[in-house]
C-alpha cells in the first residue's frame, strides 16, 4: 500500500505538487491520471525518495521508501524507459541491479524471458526501440518480486500486442495482491486497465474513486437527433426540461432527456426522425471536463 499525505513540492515559485493526499490499496490497479505537467512524475519520484518533498509524507507499506534497506524487494519502478545507460547490454544492466540487492542471477534470465527480451539480452540498450526499453524497464521493476509496483507512462512506444500484454501483466500483478500504480495522461488507456483512479491537475487532487464512479460524475449522457423538421421538435424538448443545441440544419444534441423520451415526444407530435442516437458518458469526456480548467499546457482551441 502507498499512502501519500499532504505532499507538496515547490521549485522556487512553481508549485509542482500541492497538498496531495491519496491512497493506493493492495490488490488493485490504480490509475494515476492527469494532463502533462500535472505533477504525476514528481509525485512518483517523491514516493521513491528521489526528490525530497517541500512538505508532507509518502509511505510505502507503512514506511518512507528510503527507510527500507533493499529497494527492489519492496518497490519495482519504471519511471522512464530512458533511465538506463545506452552503452550497456540489457543483461549487464539487469545483472548489476540484481546484484545490488543480492538477487540470484537466474532472476535476470527469468525477467528477460517474462518481458520477451531473451533474444536481445546481449545487445546494447542504445540500439533498442522505445518499446524494447519499456520492456527492459518493466523487467527491472519485476526483478525483486516486489509487493508494490510503480509505472510511469508504461505503454508509450509499445506496439498493440505489447499494450495488451502490459494490461494483462498489471491485472495479474494486482490479482496476486500487489499494489499497482500506473500513470498516464490518456484516459482511454485507463479504461481497460485500472480499477481505481487518482486524478490530478496542476498538482492538486481532482478525484479519487472507482472507474465507474468517475465515469458517472463527469460527462453527461446526451442524445443526437436528426430530423428534417428538427426546428419543430425544439419547443417540445425544452418544455420537457431538456437542453438543446443545434448542430446544423436538421441536427440536434439533446442533454437531460433520455433517448426513449425524445422518441416518444417526436412520435406524439408527428415529427419524422432520421436518427436517434444515445451517447453514454465516456471516461474520456469526464476526464476532459474535470481537467479542462487545470491543464498547464494547452494549445489554443481551433475556432
Amino acid at each position: 500500500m502507498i499512502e501519500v499525505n499532504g505532499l507538496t513540492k515547490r521549485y522556487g515559485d512553481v508549485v509542482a505538487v500541492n497538498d496531495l493526499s491519496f491512497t493506493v490499496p493492495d490488490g488493485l490497479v490504480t490509475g494515476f491520471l492527469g494532463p502533462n505537467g500535472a505533477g504525476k512524475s514528481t509525485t512518483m519520484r517523491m514516493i521513491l525518495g528521489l526528490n525530497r518533498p517541500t512538505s508532507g509524507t509518502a509511505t510505502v507499506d507503512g514506511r518512507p521508501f528510503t527507510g527500507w534497506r533493499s529497494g527492489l524487494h519492496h518497490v519495482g519502478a519504471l519511471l522512464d524507459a530512458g533511465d538506463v545507460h545506452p552503452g550497456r547490454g540489457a543483461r549487464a544492466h539487469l545483472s548489476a541491479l540484481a546484484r545490488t540487492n543480492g538477487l540470484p542471477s537466474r532472476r535476470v534470465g527469468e525477467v528477460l524471458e517474462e518481458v520477451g527480451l531473451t533474444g536481445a539480452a546481449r545487445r546494447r540498450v542504445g540500439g533498442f526501440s522505445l518499446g524494447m526499453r519499456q520492456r527492459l524497464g518493466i523487467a527491472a521493476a519485476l526483478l525483486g518480486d516486489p509487493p508494490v509496483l510503480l509505472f510511469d507512462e508504461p505503454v508509450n512506444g509499445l506496439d498493440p500486442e505489447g499494450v495488451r500484454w502490459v494490461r494483462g501483466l498489471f491485472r495479474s500483478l494486482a490479482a496476486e495482491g500487489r499494489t499497482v500504480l500506473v500513470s498516464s495522461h490518456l484516459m482511454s488507456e485507463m479504461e481497460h486497465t485500472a480499477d481505481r483512479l487518482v486524478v490530478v491537475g496542476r498538482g492538486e487532487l481532482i478525484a479519487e474513486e472507482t472507474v465507474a464512479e468517475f465515469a458517472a460524475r463527469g460527462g453527461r449522457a446526451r442524445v443526437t437527433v436528426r430530423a428534417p423538421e428538427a426546428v419543430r421538435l425544439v419547443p417540445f424538448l425544452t418544455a420537457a426540461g431538456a437542453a438543446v443545441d443545434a448542430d446544423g440544419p436538421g441536427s440536434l444534441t439533446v442533454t437531460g432527456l433520455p433517448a426513449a423520451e425524445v422518441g416518444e415526444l417526436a412520435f406524439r407530435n408527428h415529427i419524422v426522425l432520421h436518427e436517434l442516437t444515445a451517447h453514454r458518458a465516456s471516461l474520456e469526456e469526464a476526464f476532459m471536463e474535470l481537467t479542462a480548467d487545470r491543464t498547464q499546457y494547452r494549445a489554443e482551441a481551433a475556432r
Partner: protein
Amino acid sequence: MSTAVGRSAPPVTRRYSAADPRVRFRDLVAAEWIKLRSLRSTWWVLGLGVLLLLLAAAQKSIGDYDVWPTFRARERADFDPMSPAFSQMSAVLLVVGSGVVGALTLVGEYATGLVRTTFTAVPARHRVVLAKIAVVTAVMLAVGAFVALSTFAVSQAILSGRGIALSLDDPGVPRVLAANALLAPLAALAGMGIGALLRHTAGTVVAVIGLLVILPMMVKPNVHQWANDLYMCLPFYDWALCLSQRHPRVNPALPTVTVSWLVFAAWAVASAAVAVAVVRRRDV
C-alpha cells in the same frame, strides 16, 4: 478516500516475501564492478591510454639513448634516467584520462538517468557512492601501478644499452614510481567529486582538465610565499615540482615530499566526501 472499489479484492495469495534483507556492501561493490566492466568505453579509454603511455616512454627513451654519446660530462651529470619513462606530458595524459573515467562513473549515471533506477534499487545512496569510490580507486590504482612499473621497465630496458639504467632500489625511485601510480586514483576521485557537483558530462570534463592540469601548469614558484603556499595545494603542482624528482630541491618556495603526500591524501579524502555528501543531499 473512497473505500468502495469496483472489483472486490481477489483472495490475496502473496507469493512474494515481505522481507527486508540487508544490502551487503560487497554486493554493491560487485554491482559497480559489473557496471564499469560492461561499458566498452572503459576498456577503450584505459587500453588506449596505457598503450600511448608505453609508446611515449619508449620513444623518449630511444631519443635519449640516441643523443647520449653527444652529451658532455656536465649534461651527463644533470641527466636523470628516471625522466624519459614518465614525462610531464605522460602525467597530463594519465591525469586527464583517469579523471574522466572517474567522473563518468558518476556523471554517466546522472546524464543517462540510470541514477534513478540505481537509487530506487538501493535507497541508501551514500553506500552506492562509497561502493563506486571503492571500485574506481581499486581499478585506477591497478592501472596507475601498471603504468608506472611498465613505463619504467620499458625505459630502463632501453637505457641499459648505455649503462645508465636505474633499478627499483635506487634512491628516490620507489617514491617517484609511487607518485606516478597514485596520480591515477587521485585524479579519478577528484573527477568523481567534480562530477558530483556539476552532473554535466562536458562541463565536468572541462573542469577536470582545468582544475587538475591546466591551472597547476600555469602557476610558478615566485617571491610571494603566500602564493607558493597556495600553489602547493594543487596535487599536480606538487607532483611536477617535487614527487616526480628523484632528488627534489630543498627550498621553502617549493613543496616538500611530506607536504606533497599530505596534499594528495587531502584531495582524495575531500573528493570522496564531496561526492558522498552532494549525492546524498540533492534531488535526482
